[in-house]
């Protein structure tokens, strides 16, 4: 079995979750790797869109931000934010969008915080803020979430609810007036977590090779169901080759 690092496995685990024919909303960083890798691994007819207005980008180099000129290359159309967010919610295209997000904190129902740690009025740490994350999490039918698996990040209560997950349970989104569904999966550096169809609570779907289910729990403030957990299939030679040679040969996001 080839060697690989956690970032590589995270990108591949997320790529495997992208269905052929889906419209993939990308944020910055590792979500771009997943979206680019998916086109080569399992979803050749998926297309990549950015909130900045680039639709069906043909990425040749990894963009450093969603505003990077690299997202404009070979796009089917380049417009602006208004068009891109409209595509995510109109009745024709909106239901086909999968959004990939990240955050500083996540709770049991997949609600995300990317705004502050501590009190909102006098935060101990200020982050960048929602950007388009709250929009995407509100509008689309399926989101995948990248997280670093740490106790201070998988928390019982997020300090600030920036982007809606399943809110307070199965009926939360409908009561709030949100369209679509909440998160489908969380991909961390230790595990892949799903959300139960009935309760909408997070559960352990798969743990990375070499990681135990208990180690996953030890890095969370709340407890999740382990009964469905299995070991994640390690990346194949082909998946790693795609990621390293085609997607990020400069290792800008995969790192050293």
């Amino acid at each position, binding site marked *: 079995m080839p060697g690989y690092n956690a970032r590589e496995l995270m990108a591949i685990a997320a790529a495997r979750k992208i269905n052929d024919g889906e419209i993939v909303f990308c944020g910055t960083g590792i979500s771009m790797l997943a979206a680019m890798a998916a086109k080569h691994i399992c979803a050749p007819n998926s297309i990549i869109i950015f909130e900045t207005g680039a639709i069906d980008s043909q990425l040749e180099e990894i963009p450093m931000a*969603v*505003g990077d000129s690299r997202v404009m290359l070979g796009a089917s159309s380049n417009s602006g*934010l208004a068009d891109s*967010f409209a595509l995510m919610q109109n009745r024709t295209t909106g239901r086909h969008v999968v959004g990939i997000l990240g955050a500083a904190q996540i709770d049991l129902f997949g609600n995300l915080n990317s705004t502050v740690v501590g009190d909102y009025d006098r935060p101990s740490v200020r982050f*960048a803020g929602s950007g*388009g994350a*709250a929009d995407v999490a509100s509008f689309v039918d399926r989101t995948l979430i990248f997280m670093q698996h740490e106790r201070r990040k998988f928390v019982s209560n997020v300090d600030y*609810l920036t982007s*809606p997950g399943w809110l307070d349970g199965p009926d939360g989104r409908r009561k709030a007036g949100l369209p679509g569904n909440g998160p489908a999966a969380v991909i961390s550096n230790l595990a892949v977590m799903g959300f139960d169809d009935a309760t909408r609570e997070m559960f352990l779907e798969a743990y990375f090779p070499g990681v135990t289910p208990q180690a996953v729990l030890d890095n969370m403030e709340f407890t999740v169901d382990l009964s469905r957990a299995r070991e994640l299939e390690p990346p194949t030679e082909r998946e790693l080759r795609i990621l390293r040679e085609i997607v990020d040969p400069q290792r800008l996001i995969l790192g050293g």
Partner: protein
Amino acid sequence: MDTSSEKVMDLKTAVARFVPDGAHISIGGFTCNRNPMAAVYEIIRQRKTGLHLYAHSNGQGVDELVGAGCVARVEIAYAGTGRFAPTCIRFRKAVENGTIAVEDYSNYQMTLRFLAGAMGVPFLPTRSALGTDIIRRWGFSEALRRSNPRLPNEKLVVMDNPFGGWAETDRVVLVPAIRPDVTLLHVQKAGRDGTARIEGLTFADVEQAKAARHVIVTCEDLADAGELRAHPHLNQLPGILLDAVVHVPHGAYPTACYRYYDYDPAFLNDYRTAATDDERYTRYLRDWIFEPSDHREQHARIPEGRLAAIQADPHTGYAKGLKR
């Protein structure tokens, strides 16, 4: 707005005329792309204070205006510059120290807010961020909102769909219009009459321009208005919207300008280092912004070879293989 056919002026004059202390301003671009940096630096050089800044995801420009102490309040969706600063560093310090007031929205909410301003309606509806703290928590106090006629009384208003369940929607959130005194943009081409052409993504620049009372545009090329008007379908801004056209090649540097140059990774990495330390940042402000008297003198300080390294490849619009 200005219907005259001659809008060209220098940057000092444009900023002095249209950006008074305490002005409500918005700047174009997105994170590390097409921020109107030359105009931002001129605002800093003229030591403007008390600005009220509206931004969706305007990274570098926001951080420099906040870092230099020009900004009192900011309404924003995202303050980051991609990998160079996942959270803008001086912005983060200012919020954590309580030296600026912040009101949080999402990118789409900010886009709609500019669009509402452009349309002349008081608000627009969306379903974005229902059920979140973006709606529940206010950064600006109720007292500030009630006492300041330039601010709407509410941050956001949630209401039931007045058309019943039409379009499968039970509830909407109303986002209030933004009406800046001035919007500052950097574009690829503009004519003396104000006709302006953006190449590549427009971000929310067009809505931001149309929402504002005054518009200052800096441009890479001061183009012949007749040539721009020969292909009007490629122009986004009609000349009448603009009050000032300023010819500033590399006016978005150190952010990118599609088809002209990339962002400068070396500059942005050095900036990150400077921004994390107050003393270093003071030196940065002195050496890069205050000592040079204008854009030309400032750019004479860019180390040899840096502009050549970021020059855009004509086929991709960015610097291929740039060391990032």
